[in-house]
């Protein structure tokens, strides 16, 4: 059942659950962050509306820099602004930033430990019709490998807003992963958000038989899976990884100890992404059978978000099958 302590959306299981893009939460959060700190500045590479930075740019034009279609410039100019005491948010599509400008991010932001906030929107296969060239499936891997970098992957718009506000307050480089598609609201404004802390969103009253570790909007599918299995008498615990780095080792190890079987869920390549990150923790601390839901060693293609999630085996039924598989492998 849903963890009541976290004050999650009571309408989460309704057929007409409210859907808002995570990028919208970012756009609103950035305006709030800028309202409370005059050092917050914004930079964009010709994708103001798509990334939802236009709200900030409209309200604070003197603190906004339009760099044009130049993602390498986007992050390096941001690094220079941070060197002068600013808190820059640099927004583009994840495929271009951090996709195209990774070395600039490494050298001028992570290496220098400058508090630039890199905002990668339209991440994941759920970008849909734009096709495989625009679907960033590698950005978590690219960012979580960098020392100093904090990596947020919010599960819904409300969490994205909180992640944006948290990013503005911490004197470190941050990557925020956002999606284009409207996705169900899972949390509420009263749900706590803490950097580096995973949250148990769904837990059975008894010891759980399988643990699902999920990140981003697919957390919703993970919760539906847990609910479906609960009705069949199988107990599943779901944790939400909103910080991929720092990763909540303790929560993941405890989940493995409780369940002895883990499924990871992400809209990203499982290699280098959350699946890898969870496996790295478990193999060094408490190895248990694991199944990895996500994209497996291929590029995406055009289609609706729903078609792609289904065809690339990240749907509710695909996760259910993974749960069955991992239960069969339990020792």
């Amino acid at each position, binding site marked *: 059942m849903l963890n009541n302590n976290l004050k999650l959306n009571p309408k989460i299981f309704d057929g007409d659950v409210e859907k808002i893009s995570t990028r919208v939460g970012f756009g609103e959060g950035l305006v709030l962050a800028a309202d409370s700190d005059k050092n917050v500045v914004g930079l964009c590479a010709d994708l103001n509306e798509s990334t939802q930075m236009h709200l900030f740019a409209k309200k604070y034009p003197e603190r906004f820099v339009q760099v*044009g279609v130049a993602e*390498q410039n986007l992050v*390096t100019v*941001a690094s*220079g602004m941070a060197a002068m005491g600013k808190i820059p948010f640099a927004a583009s599509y994840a495929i271009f930033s951090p996709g195209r400008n990774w070395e*600039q991010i490494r050298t001028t932001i992570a290496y220098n430990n400058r508090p630039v906030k890199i905002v990668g929107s339209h991440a994941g296969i759920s970008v849909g019709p734009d096709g495989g060239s625009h679907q960033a499936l590698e950005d978590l891997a690219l960012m979580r490998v960098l020392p100093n970098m904090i990596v947020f992957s919010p599960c819904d718009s409300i969490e994205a807003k909180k992640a944006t506000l948290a990013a503005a307050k911490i004197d470190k480089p941050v990557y925020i992963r956002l999606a284009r598609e409207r996705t169900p609201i899972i949390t509420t404004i009263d749900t706590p958000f803490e950097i580096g802390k995973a949250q148990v969103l769904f837990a059975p009253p008894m010891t759980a038989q399988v643990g699902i570790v999920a990140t981003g909007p697919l957390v919703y599918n993970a919760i539906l899976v847990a609910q479906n299995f609960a009705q069949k008498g199988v107990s599943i615990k779901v944790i939400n990884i909103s910080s991929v780095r720092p990763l909540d080792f303790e929560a993941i190890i405890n989940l493995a100890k409780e369940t002895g079987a883990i499924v990871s869920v992400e809209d990203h390549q499982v290699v280098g992404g959350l699946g890898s990150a969870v496996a790295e923790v478990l193999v060094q601390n408490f190895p248990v059978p694991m199944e990895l839901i996500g994209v497996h060693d291929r590029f995406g293609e055009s289609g609706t978000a729903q078609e792609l999630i289904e065809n690339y085996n990240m749907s509710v039924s695909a996760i259910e099958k993974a749960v069955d598989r991992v239960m069969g492998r339990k020792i």
Partner: protein
Amino acid sequence: MQQLTDEKIIWLKEKANEIRQSVIESLVEAKSGHPAGALGMADIFTALYFFILKHDPTNPMWENRDRLVLSNGHICPVYYATLAHSGYFKLEELKTLRKFGSRLQGHPDRRFLNFLETSSGPLGCGLSQVVGMCLADRIDNGKYSSKQFYCLLSDGELQEGNTWEAIMLGAKERLQNLTVIIDRNNIQIEGNTENIMPLEPLRQKLESFNWHVQTIDGHDFEQIIGAIDNAQNVSNMPSIIIANTTPGKGVSFMENNFKWHGKAPNKEEGDRAVNELRSMK
């Protein structure tokens, strides 16, 4: 800007000569590194740190200092030698260049030398950082801020797309407090720039990107200081100075030989180089 007298020019020349000797000595100790560009830029570094920059070696993080970024970080032996001669640290420390535990890393690294404006080495991303610094300062202090922003570029890194992205943004934003100096020595690792990837007509290119452009002899203090003075008086556009320099300047067997781009002199070569420099005094 203070008055540039003949006495001052003689003094600056002597200082640059001392800095060149320090460059050679530190590279001999390090057994690797980049002498040609470092020697070629010694006069410009000397002019900047001993005549032009607003800075305080006793308070390196002074808020109102001018900002200087060395984008082509590989010529850092001359950066370190200039900082040492300016009083940021003891000359003795130059002997630790490129050694384990040293603050003087193989490329400038603010994790070890925290008053550097940035870490550099990977080419092509210095100018965009300075553009960002300039933009941030304009938000805080307006167009007529007292701070000046300098970026030193190699000619080779004009082959990097990121450099031109920054050139476009600098012009768009009309960053009048920004002065860029290009070390136009015509060499890069594998040979002459015009054979590897031609940059000419460089001046026309830069002018057509809406920058104020000057071309100077990068070893003539009057020209260096005069050009920077002009640059600061240009309004509503950023300024770029193409400084023609001789790679390996001051050491006969290194001058204009691209083989010395990335090879350190051995002890014997180092002694010869230092002796040549001493005899020039």
